[in-house]
């Protein structure tokens, strides 16, 4: 049986800053080991811990106990109940009470406060399932992505080589640890390279600035275009930052330049998805081409682009249109038209439009992603609706009952008719023209 270490760092190295407490690898492993003993052997663990330190210890404990981490797309009671019933022997670990959830759960607090030191590095079977990541869909149905330990182990080494954080970096993340971007950078990277992550999860600009001030140089910020834009718009006074990593949504060149100017950081944008993990990088302020990580290979066929890598369980079809320029460089041409990714959640536009058309009184309509400009990044979907006897508010209310808030179209405009071609198709060009017209009227 091939095994791979849980971490390749030594017991005295710093893995986390839990508030102000420095946590060494040895202490971290002792805490995870103590929690492992509280869990039934080999059981799947529904890891709902919110604090990054609690989440990371639980993540390690599940793996060390021979089980896997189940990472749901949200913490809603219905989601948790469904996981509990569909995974035999699944145990919930949560660091704070869950609203509405009445089942049993393990509280990791005692293990998290342990002052023991464990100098042995656990060996994990390479093919052990370590995590199952669930991504949400437009209506709550989710897809599951399996991550064997070898995948997480190898991709962490690849990410360290490609992201190349400054040695001794202190990492602050504005993203939660549960989703792939936060998991790879703020949980796993510090297990394999000379970086220390802060447990804080700052959200508002004032929180981000305060937490950045608290950590030492060289500072690394792991974030998203949404948070970075808020920093620029607030004229936040940022301390010197060495490196900023951004992912989850397209970063505009002007925003990348603004952040570089404000913080002195090199801003590196990362491209990837939950299935592949991080896949390519670019310094957005300077270049347009993406540099593919060496471990990956991309091939194009008539339907799009497929990514392959030795450490992935199988080939992955990407959600975007890519133009391959060389084996290692590509440009992103945009999303495949039907799939959208907003606030880390995925949806199908066809499915959302279907929900819109189901509303009584709606005669025709479409939900779509407006084009992105530097001034107005496309963070929201838009809708044009034909419904002579309804108010926009009625439609919004009806949609709100079935659609996640992230996908609520905004603006939603009533029109007399949609510019359908004779075949019934809706040419994007005509759609955008009509949309621009309604924008001018509204403005």
């Amino acid at each position, binding site marked *: 049986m091939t095994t791979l270490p849980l971490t390749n760092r030594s017991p005295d190295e710093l893995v986390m800053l839990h508030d102000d407490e420095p946590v060494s690898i040895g202490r971290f492993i002792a805490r995870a080991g103590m929690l492992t003993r509280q869990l039934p052997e080999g059981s799947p663990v529904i890891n709902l811990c919110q604090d990054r330190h609690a989440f990371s210890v639980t993540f390690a404990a599940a793996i060390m106990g021979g089980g896997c981490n189940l990472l749901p797309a949200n913490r809603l009671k219905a989601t948790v109940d469904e996981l509990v019933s569909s995974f035999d022997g699944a145990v919930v670990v949560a660091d704070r009470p869950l609203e509405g959830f009445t089942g049993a759960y393990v509280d990791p607090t005692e293990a998290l406060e342990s002052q023991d030191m464990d100098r042995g590095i656990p060996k994990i079977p390479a093919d052990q399932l370590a995590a199952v990541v669930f991504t949400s869909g437009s209506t709550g149905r989710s897809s599951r992505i399996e991550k064997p330990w070898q995948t997480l182990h190898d991709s962490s080494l690849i990410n360290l080589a490609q992201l190349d954080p400054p040695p001794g970096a202190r990492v602050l993340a504005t993203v939660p640890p549960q989703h792939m971007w936060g998991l790879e950078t703020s949980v796993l990277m510090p297990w394999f390279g000379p970086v220390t992550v802060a447990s*804080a999860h*700052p*959200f*508002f*600009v*004032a*929180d981000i600035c*305060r937490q950045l001030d608290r950590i030492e140089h060289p500072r690394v910020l792991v974030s998203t275009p*949404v*948070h970075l834009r*808020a920093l620029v*718009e*607030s004229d936040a006074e940022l301390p010197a930052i060495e490196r900023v990593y951004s992912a989850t949504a397209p970063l505009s060149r002007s925003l990348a330049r603004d952040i570089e100017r404000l913080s002195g950081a090199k801003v590196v944008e990362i491209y990837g998805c939950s299935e592949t993990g991080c896949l390519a990088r670019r310094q957005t302020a300077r270049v347009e081409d993406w540099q593919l990580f060496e471990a990956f290979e991309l091939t194009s066929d008539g339907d799009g682009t497929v990514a392959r890598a030795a450490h992935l369980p199988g080939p992955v079809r990407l959600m975007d249109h890519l133009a391959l320029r060389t084996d290692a460089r590509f440009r992103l041409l945009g999303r495949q038209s039907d799939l959208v990714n907003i*606030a880390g959640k995925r949806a199908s536009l066809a499915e959302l439009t279907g929900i819109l058309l189901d509303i009584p009184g709606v005669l025709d309509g479409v939900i779509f992603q407006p084009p992105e400009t530097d001034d107005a990044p496309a*963070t*929201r979907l838009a809708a044009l609706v034909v419904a002579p006897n309804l108010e*926009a*508010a009625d439609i*919004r*209310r009806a949609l*709100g009952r079935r659609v996640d*808030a*992230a996908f*609520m179209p*905004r*603006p*939603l*405009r009533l029109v007399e008719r949609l510019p359908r071609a004779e075949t019934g198709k809706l040419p994007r060009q005509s759609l955008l023209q009509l949309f621009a017209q309604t924008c001018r009227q*509204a403005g």
Partner: protein
Amino acid sequence: MSTQQSPQEHELAQLIVSSLNLEDLSPEEIEPEKQLFGGEYGLDSIDALELAVAISKQYGVQLKADDERNRHAFANLRALNEHVQSLREQG
């Protein structure tokens, strides 16, 4: 408690509608004690972040999420207005 917006609440409601491009919602339609985020207005955490930026520009106060009191501040229009006003007084 009144379900009518006070003048201060109305001003904040106008800022919410304009800063989040809620073109099909009028400021008057935001009920002071109705859940602002995650409810029927369709506002989520990204809106909270954008709204915090708009509030800092208009009122010169910084919202934070890292204490319990501040988390309640986003419950509804009335709570948010009270929070913003109390930050201004501390200012």
